[in-house]
């Protein structure tokens, strides 16, 4: 599974183009506590969260996440998108909630 495949999922919108679409996505990590993400998220995961702000980009980059999926149609601020572009980190958004988004990704991985 790659970021290109994530972008192609139903109801997922890509918020900027400045990332490598062939980057492998190795799984998902669903959490709204950034300290938990920092401590426990795996390299290459897609971070599923509603924390739509700049700090999420820093923590996702530190944790080695492949990208971020913002749930519940939370508005994503411009400075967050700008930081993600600088990091080459993909940001997606979806109207689905964290449970639905996790199930959607889980189906792709046969979880």
């Amino acid at each position, binding site marked *: 599974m790659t970021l290109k495949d994530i972008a192609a999922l139903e109801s997922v919108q890509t918020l900027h183009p400045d990332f490598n679409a062939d980057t492998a996505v190795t799984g998902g990590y669903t959490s709204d506590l950034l*300290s938990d993400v*920092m*401590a426990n998220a795996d390299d290459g995961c897609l971070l599923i969260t509603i*924390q739509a*702000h*700049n*700090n999420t980009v*820093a923590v996702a980059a530190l944790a080695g996440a492949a990208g971020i999926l913002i749930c519940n149609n939370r508005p994503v601020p411009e400075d967050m998108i700008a930081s993600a572009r600088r990091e080459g980190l993909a940001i997606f958004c979806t109207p689905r909630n964290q449970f639905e988004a996790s199930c959607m990704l889980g189906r792709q991985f046969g979880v």
Partner: protein
Amino acid sequence: MLADLHNHSCLSPCASLEMSPGLIARTAAAKGIGLIALTDHNSTRNCPAFRDACKRYNLTPLFGMEITTTEECHVLTLFDDLDAAMEMNRWIAAVQPRIPLNLDYYSDQPVVDADDNIIELLTYFLGQAVPHSLESVRRQTRLLGGLFIPSHINRHSFSVESQLGFLPPGDYDAIEVVPGTVDAYRRRYPDLPVITASDSHCPEQIGTWPFHIHLEGQGHDIAAIRRGLMNLTLNNLSSTP
């Protein structure tokens, strides 16, 4: 008197390395601040240097930290007594997660003396949430005789409102709000002192958002500061329609 209760020194991983306790005290004094707190993320290790620096510039210091609670709310815990602040530090450090500091994203975390000499570099990330809840931090702060003030409660991240959606009713000495929102929060919480703070991370930010506090007498201890804060609520009542 002008008070500024939220400042980060070079010890905080997100602060400029120029922010030595000495520079903070000197700059604050030059800007007319009289009461100033040092509040690094989850550590009071630069407070001994801050005490010495404040003495040089005749400032009243408060020793504290900005704790990241388990809920990822930032709260200020402040003491007039350095020993109490260091006791609070031991309580935090005993359970602090040891996540290595990544220098690609954060700066070094030096413990320094009042003359800017580096004593030690802390190698674990100080910004990580500690396994104590908001309520547990409040209780420990009270036990040690300190002030308990939730930071920037209406900011979009790491605030009581961003994490919990509301300010839990409780025993606060004040609430810090984002500059420009003081009047709105005074109306919303007429019983609480509402303050601004610089939350300085670099020299230019020192002394940018202080508030006025009236302190009675000469000894500016916690009790006097608490009374001064409570007096701020008189303004709330008079400005409440």
